[in-house]
């Protein structure tokens, strides 16, 4: 009996000992959890902030190691792990890729329709340093697609507006502002400071410059473009892929280069292309996946189709990246890109050409006087019909410039209709958006036999400026 009791006592003692050990272990674990929590919420922390982001591989003088194990020596802090947790959970991404992003740096050329999503996503995913370059200020007609800016930033430089938004999303990244355009002289110095360059520009001249500078500075270039309902995207100068000049050694003729400010663009189209660009940057920085090198992604938004096509490789004869390059760190700064591309380094209003003489033109103010004086005349608006439908002057006749030769009789008939008895020939006034096509129309009409044809100088933009400020000029 006693023996049995003694035996049970021994059992209790053993169990008690086991429970004590367990208790000590749990207490230790709880302490660790509390410490980690303190680090994640620095406001309630009684630990110095320097603990975050410290060097865990340092020697004796380094900060004490945190009481949690950072896997196989990565440098992510607890705050970073929490912020990027959803992409760290991706088996194909993980801590190594995130580390590369946090260490990486990207230069974004252009803070417009493409640059907006690129900057937003790269800041959000934690790219360490983002350089944003753009000479322009935010305008109201940018906001439908340049989603990094908002109403409050109209009038502000695009780079400061973009930088503010990026930091509001992620204050732990560094944003460098370049409130000026890329030019041949500053390109190489600026690019040297970055790992990847993003071409989010809006003109041919800048595109050649960005590509050449990337070749000389040996940086991969993630290039995107969007217009109307279409987009194009590729990665140049990466692995064995071509550069922009390998594909397009000669620039397109100026007449073939449509601008967003003329041809229009649906807001989401650059949004999609820019988002793809951000994806390619992430892939290049982290070396995860297959970047679009020697391939091009073509987006047709109208039919919701995405095509990825195979491109040629590097051209050995290429003047930029070929075997005997003519464009080097010495020649590039003196290369005249605007002359080469025969177009300015901006998407802004093209300079107005003066084709017809003063005797064949009339200012908007004078034309307004004539209308108020009820002088009978014919007003021809030579814009495309879809532009004419947005807003037009009363009693104007819409004959798109391209259709003018077939519509001469319509103008003759209109002139005949307005003609009073005893009147001389009827005057015909021609207007368009900016006053360029209307001048060409005046020349064409004069050579077709119309004698009293006049150009309304500066078109509807001038009309809105000088006569009727309520007219919605585009």
């Amino acid at each position, binding site marked *: 009996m006693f023996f049995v009791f003694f035996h049970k006592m021994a059992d209790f003692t053993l169990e008690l000992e086991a429970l004590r050990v367990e208790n000590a272990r749990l207490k230790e674990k709880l302490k660790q959890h509390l410490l980690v929590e303190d680090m994640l919420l620095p406001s309630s922390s009684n630990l110095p902030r320097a603990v975050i982001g410290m060097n865990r591989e340092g020697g004796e003088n380094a900060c004490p190691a945190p009481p949690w194990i950072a896997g196989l020596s990565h440098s992510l802090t607890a705050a970073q792990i929490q912020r990027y947790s959803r992409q760290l959970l991706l088996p194909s991404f993980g801590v190594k890729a995130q580390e590369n992003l946090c260490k990486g740096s990207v230069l974004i050329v252009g803070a417009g329709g493409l*640059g907006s999503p690129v900057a937003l996503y790269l800041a959000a995913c934690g790219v360490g340093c983002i350089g944003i370059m753009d000479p322009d200020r935010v305008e109201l007609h940018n906001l439908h697609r340049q989603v990094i800016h908002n109403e409050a930033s109209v009038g502000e430089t695009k780079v400061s507006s973009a930088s503010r938004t990026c930091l509001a999303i992620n204050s732990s990244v560094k944003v460098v502002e370049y409130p000026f355009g890329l030019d041949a002289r500053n390109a190489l110095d600026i690019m040297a400071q970055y790992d990847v360059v993003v071409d989010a520009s809006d*003109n041919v001249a800048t595109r050649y410059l960005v590509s050449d500078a990337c070749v000389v500075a040996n940086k991969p270039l993630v290039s995107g473009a969007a217009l109307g309902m279409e987009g194009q995207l590729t990665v140049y100068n990466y692995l064995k892929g071509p550069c922009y000049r390998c594909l397009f050694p000669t620039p397109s003729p100026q007449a073939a280069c449509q601008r967003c400010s003329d041809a229009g663009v649906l807001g989401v189209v650059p949004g999609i292309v820019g988002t793809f660009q951000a994806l390619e940057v992430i892939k290049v920085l982290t070396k995860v996946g297959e970047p679009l090198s020697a391939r091009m992604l073509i987006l047709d938004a109208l039919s919701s189709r995405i095509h990825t096509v*195979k491109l040629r490789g590097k051209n050995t004869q290429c003047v930029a990246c070929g075997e005997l390059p003519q464009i080097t760190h010495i020649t590039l700064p003196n290369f005249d890109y605007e002359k080469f591309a025969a177009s300015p380094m901006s998407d802004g209003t093209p300079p107005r050409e003066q084709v017809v003489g003063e005797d064949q033109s009339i200012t908007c103010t004078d034309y307004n006087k004539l209308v108020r004086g009820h002088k009978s005349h014919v007003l021809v608006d030579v814009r495309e019909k879809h532009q004419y439908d947005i807003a037009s002057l009363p009693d104007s006749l819409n004959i798109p410039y391209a259709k003018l030769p077939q519509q001469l009789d319509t103008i003759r008939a209109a002139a005949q209709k307005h003609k009073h008895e005893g009147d001389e020939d009827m005057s015909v006034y021609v207007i368009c958006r900016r006053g360029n096509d209307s001048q060409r129309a005046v020349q064409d009409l004069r050579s077709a036999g119309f004698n009293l044809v006049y150009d309304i100088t500066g078109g509807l933009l001038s009309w809105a400026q000088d006569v009727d400020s309520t007219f919605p000029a585009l």
Partner: protein
Amino acid sequence: MNKLGFRLTAQWCLLLWLIRPRSSDYRISFHFIVVRSNFRAARLGVRRADDMHLTLEFGGGLELLFGSQKKHEVEVTSPDDLKEVTMESLLSWIKDNLIKERPEMFVKESSVRPGVLVLINDSDWELCGRLETVLEENDEVIFISTLHGG
């Protein structure tokens, strides 16, 4: 060709009559369309024995030169009764038969103008011989103008 077309049409009609569904009108009308288009092609003699069917696509603004239509299913006859249709002969065929305005915005000398990318079955034509590339039945050729907007 025409005789063959009529015979095919007659055979189709007979077949359709034999397998006509009792409950659904949908299928019969679909087949009727097929029959009608076969009939029409045969009657008009659209397709010649040496014609080659190609799918052409124009993008990046080039579609404006083709009546704002992006995709064109075409039957191309090789010039000079050569058996082969090459990219060079296709370009001249497009210039003569398909383009609606400003051909200088599409072709320059015997090739495409600078800034146009040509893709044959989703591959850059530089990879398969540019103008000398020999096309095959049902090939897909894409002409795309490089975009600059952003």
